[in-house]
């Protein structure tokens, strides 16, 4: 059942991505000021959306784990954060490439970029913590606590950065306030967001199964050692 869902979702995702990329690269015209490079936004923004959504759900799953002690929530949270981290990495890399071409620098200490970087560092710590704890119950408990702390911190960082860094406004691309994006161009972002979320969900499901198998192996090993 689960592998059928996985296959179906993977197929949908492949179809969506193909269609989206066809539209992005072949159908949509270059942007007036930025030229071809603006297309990076179709990777950049959906990745950011996916990452932040996943970190949020991971925090909720962590709360649920601490409340119920059910390992499936731990697996959900671990898988979401790991995949979220990949997408956060894509955000940083694509943002950097875009910044080099448009702003002339690889990195600008701008609100969202800074937040994403700190977020990435925090959740990289989460993955390191998981590696450092061997006993699965202890690992689940401690990493759930870290996920909650990390989320609170990322929210505060974001608020703080928006406050400070945008006091000296840089050339931040605003999407929602009609910052110069044609409706056709903007819609494509949402389509690609859908494709990315699909892809990420497939990855999360694969990772969750790995988590479960890893736990089973661990318990078998303990059983073997106890006799």
């Amino acid at each position, binding site marked *: 059942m689960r592998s059928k869902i996985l296959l179906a979702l993977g197929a949908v995702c492949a179809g969506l991505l193909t269609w989206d990329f066809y539209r992005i690269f072949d159908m949509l015209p270059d942007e007036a000021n930025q030229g071809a490079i603006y297309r990076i936004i179709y990777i950049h923004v959906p990745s950011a959306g996916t990452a932040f959504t996943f970190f949020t759900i991971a925090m909720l799953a962590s709360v649920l784990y601490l409340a119920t*002690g059910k*390992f499936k929530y731990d697996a959900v949270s671990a898988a979401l954060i790991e995949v979220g981290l990949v997408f956060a990495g894509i955000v940083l890399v694509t943002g950097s490439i875009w910044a080099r071409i448009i702003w002339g620098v690889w990195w600008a200490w701008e609100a969202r970029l800074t937040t994403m970087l700190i977020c990435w560092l925090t959740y990289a710590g989460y993955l390191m913590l998981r590696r450092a704890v061997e*006993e*699965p*119950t202890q690992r689940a408990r401690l990493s759930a606590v870290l996920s909650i702390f990390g989320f609170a911190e990322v929210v505060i960082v974001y608020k703080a950065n928006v406050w400070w860094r945008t006091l000296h406004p840089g050339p931040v691309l605003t999407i929602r306030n009609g910052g110069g994006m044609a409706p056709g161009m903007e819609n494509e972002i949402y389509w690609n967001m859908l494709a990315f979320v699909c892809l990420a969900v497939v990855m999360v499901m694969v990772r969750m199964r790995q988590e479960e198998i890893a*736990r*089973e192996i*661990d*318990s078998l090993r*303990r*059983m073997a*050692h*106890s*006799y």
Partner: protein
Amino acid sequence: MSAVAIEGVWKYYGDYPALKKVELRVEPGSSVALLGRNGAGKTTLLRIIAGLSKPSQGQVRILGSDVRQERARRRIGVLGHGISLYDELSAAENLMVFARLYGLPDPRKSALEWLERTGLERVRDGLVREFSRGMKQRLAVARAFLHDPEILLFDEPFTALDDRAIEVLQKLLSGAHAAGKTIVMSTHQLKEALVIATHVALIRRGEIAYAGERTQQMADDTGWLYRTYEA
């Protein structure tokens, strides 16, 4: 009301059950030897009884209240694998810290009293760091008895002790037993344990394989219990 009531306790490490639905009631005044091989779950169970670890399912009640409640913790004295004493503090300071945490009316007096009982009054201002192993162990015993607990939980109490400390502990334990205190101790040393045990519980692979009164047969033939219930 049971002194210690273990109600359907499970403990999982990941998917591996270290304790499987352990049910055990210890009545006030009894002295239970918790037996079992290494890795059978003795320490895990004892830590759960002491409130140092939470069961995955089920609960432990100490004289009717949950073990994580302060009321319950005030009534138990715990001696684990480590001595739980601070190397940089003196013997008296160590005991006074715990006396204050247990809310004893006169921390200094209780501390000195117990130093005397364990034969440490001469070194009361010496730092624990400088103590011999045996002295540390006696001080640890004093710490566990300090607040006059009704229930004593000892994890392998005789394993690391020297002769003098064993003597002190045996004396204190039989005194406590005579005074109607409840004692639960995990051990694989049947001989020492059976001196004061009124009951025996055998843990095998996380399950209670046997629980009942201590019999003469166990004392006469220390292998009997294991042969009968460990298979």
